[in-house]
C-alpha cells in the first residue's frame, strides 16, 4: 500500500459513511446521557478552576475568560471525539464479524475510517443543542477569523490523530483479543494528557515535557489553545507541525499494525 492509495477513495466509501451516519441515530439516547455527563464535568471544572483563580483576573498570564473558553471547547472536543472506531473494531474482533469486513471490495481500514466519519457526520446535528448548552455551562466566544481558520485546521489534524490512535488501539485486539482494559486506561489517561482537565499551561515543567512528547496533547490541547486565543499567529506554526508529524507517524504505525494483524487474525466463533 502506497501513500497514494490512501487518497484513492473507493466509490463505496461515501455509501458506508452515509449508512454509519444513519445507524448513529440508534445512539441518540446514549448521546444524550453522554452530553449530560460532559456538561456536569464542565460545570465542576468551572467551579474548581474559579476557586483556584480566587477572583484574580489572570494566573500565569492566562486570563480567567480564556481558561473558561478553553475548558468549554475541550469538553466539546471530547464529546465529538472520533473514538467510536475503537468500539467498532473491538466488537468486530470479539464477535468474528471482521470476517465480513474482509470479504468487501474495500480495505478494512478504509471501512473503519468511513464508519467513524459517518458517526461524526451523524452526530453533527447535535451541535445545535450542544453549543448553546456548553456556552451556558462554560463560556463561549468565537475567536478572530484568522484564529478560527487555524483552529479548524488544527481540529481536523487533531481528529485525524485521534482516529488513527484509536484505530491502532482497536487493532491491538488482534493480539490481545480483549482490549476493554487497555481502552479504558488510554481513555482516562488520554483525557488528562490531552489537557482536558488541566491545560498544559499549568503543568509543572517536568510533566509538560513528557506530555508534549505524547500524541494526546495534539488531540485536544493544541486546537483548544488556538480556539481560546492563547496560541495565535506565528505561534501556531509549531503546534500544527507537531500535529502533522503525528498524523504521518500514526498512519505509518496503523499500516504496519494492520499488515502484521492479517497474519495474526483468528476468526472467533468459527
Amino acid at each position, binding site marked *: 500500500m502506497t501513500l497514494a492509495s490512501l487518497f484513492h477513495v473507493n466509490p*463505496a466509501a461515501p*455509501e458506508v459513511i452515509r449508512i454509519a451516519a444513519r445507524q448513529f441515530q440508534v445512539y441518540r439516547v446514549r448521546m444524550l446521557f453522554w452530553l449530560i455527563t460532559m456538561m456536569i464535568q464542565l460545570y465542576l471544572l468551572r467551579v474548581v478552576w474559579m476557586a483556584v483563580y480566587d477572583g484574580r483576573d489572570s494566573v500565569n498570564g492566562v486570563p480567567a475568560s480564556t481558561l473558561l473558553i478553553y475548558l468549554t471547547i475541550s469538553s466539546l472536543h471530547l464529546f465529538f471525539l472520533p473514538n467510536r472506531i475503537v468500539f467498532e473494531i473491538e466488537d468486530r474482533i470479539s464477535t468474528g464479524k471482521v*470476517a*465480513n469486513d*474482509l*470479504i468487501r*471490495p*474495500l480495505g478494512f481500514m478504509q471501512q473503519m475510517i468511513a464508519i467513524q466519519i459517518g458517526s461524526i457526520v451523524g452526530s453533527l446535528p447535535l451541535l445545535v443543542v450542544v453549543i448553546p448548552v456548553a456556552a451556558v455551562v462554560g463560556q463561549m466566544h468565537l475567536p478572530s477569523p484568522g484564529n478560527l481558520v487555524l483552529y479548524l485546521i488544527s481540529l481536523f489534524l487533531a481528529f485525524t490523530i485521534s482516529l488513527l490512535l484509536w484505530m491502532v488501539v482497536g487493532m491491538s485486539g488482534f493480539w490481545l483479543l480483549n482490549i476493554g482494559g487497555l481502552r479504558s486506561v488510554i481513555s482516562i489517561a488520554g483525557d488528562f494528557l490531552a489537557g482536558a482537565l488541566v491545560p498544559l499551561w499549568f503543568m509543572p515543567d517536568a510533566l509538560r515535557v513528557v506530555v508534549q512528547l505524547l500524541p494526546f496533547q495534539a488531540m485536544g490541547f493544541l486546537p483548544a489553545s488556538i480556539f481560546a486565543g492563547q496560541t495565535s499567529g506565528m505561534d501556531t506554526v509549531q503546534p500544527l507541525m507537531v500535529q502533522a508529524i503525528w498524523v504521518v507517524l500514526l498512519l505509518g504505525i496503523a499500516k504496519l499494525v494492520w499488515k502484521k494483524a492479517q497474519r495474526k*487474525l483468528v476468526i472467533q466463533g*468459527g
Partner: protein
Amino acid sequence: MPIIEAHNLVKTFERTKRVDGRFSAIRTLFTREKETKVAVDGVSLGIEAGEIVGYLGPNGAGKSTTIKMLTGILVPTSGTATVAGVTPWEHREANAMNIGVVFGQRSQLWWDLPLDESFRLIGKMYRVPPERYRANLDMLTELLGMESFLTTPVRQLSLGQRMRGDLAAATLYEPPILFLDEPTVGLDVVAKERMRGFIEEINRQRNTTVLLTTHDLDDVERLCKRILIIDQGKVLFDGPATHLKRAYAPFRLLDITVAGDGATQLQEISQGLPGGVDIVKLEEFRATFRIDPDVVPVAAVIADFSARAPVIDLAVREQEMDGIIREIYEAKAVRK
C-alpha cells in the same frame, strides 16, 4: 484451467499453552510456551468453472478454515492458491469482486437496516450499474420469495428469511464464484429446499462455480456431482459422488408391490432369484430385493419380475449417502 486452485495450503494457529499446577493462572500469564494447532494440513484442490463441489468433513476438520483462506480472510501459513486468477489474501479487494460468500452462522447484512438498504449498499460497493441492479434485485426477490420482508430490518427477520437475504446479497453483483459455508444450517425442510433450488438455478443460469460446505447430505445429493472430504486438515477423498456410492454402496434396492392375486407369484419369484439379486424383505404382497448392477442390469430384473407377477408398483432406491460418509469419518480413509 481450474477457476479455484490451491496447492498445499497449510494453516496453523498458535496459542499460549496453559500451565497446570500451582499458581497456574499467573504462570500462564508469563509462559512463553506456545501450542500449535494445525487446522489445514496441505490441502490441494482444483475446481473448474461451473462445478458445484461439496466440501465435507466432521466439525473442526478444516473446512471453514480452507474457505476463509480462499475468500482472503485468513493468510495461510504456507501454500498457494488462486481464485479466478487472483491470490485471495494478497489482493483481497480484487478477489472480493469475484466471489460471493455466505456464512450460515454469520450474516453479512447490516443488522439495524432494512433488507433493501443492505442490498443498496452492496450494489454500490460492488459497483453494479443501476439498471443491472434493478433487474438482479427483481430476479432475486422473485426467486427467493423476499417480497414480503424486503423493507423489514434485518434483526427482525426469521432465520430462513435472513439466509435468503444473505444468499441474495452474495449473488446480487453476479460473482462467478460462490463460497457457501453451511448455507442450510438450522433451516427447516421447506427453507432448505428453497435454498437448494436457488443454488441450482443460479448455477444453471450464470454457470456460477459453487464450493459448498455442509453437514446436510441431502444438500450434497441434490446439488453436488463432485465431493471433497476433509478430516484433520487433510483431503481424504476428491472425486465424483457416484464413485463413493459405487465403492460403498454399489447395490440398488428394488421395492415391489403386487396385485391382490399375485401373492403366490411373488413367493415363486423370491424362491427362484436370478444371479446378483438377493431378497431383503418379503411380505404377502410386497418385497424388497437387493440388486448388484455389475452382475445384472436393474432394468432386466424389473422386466423379468413384471413378466412373472402382476406388479402394480415398484421403486428403485440407492443406498443413502449418510451411512457412507459416517463410515468414512470413522475409518478416516476412503475405500478404493
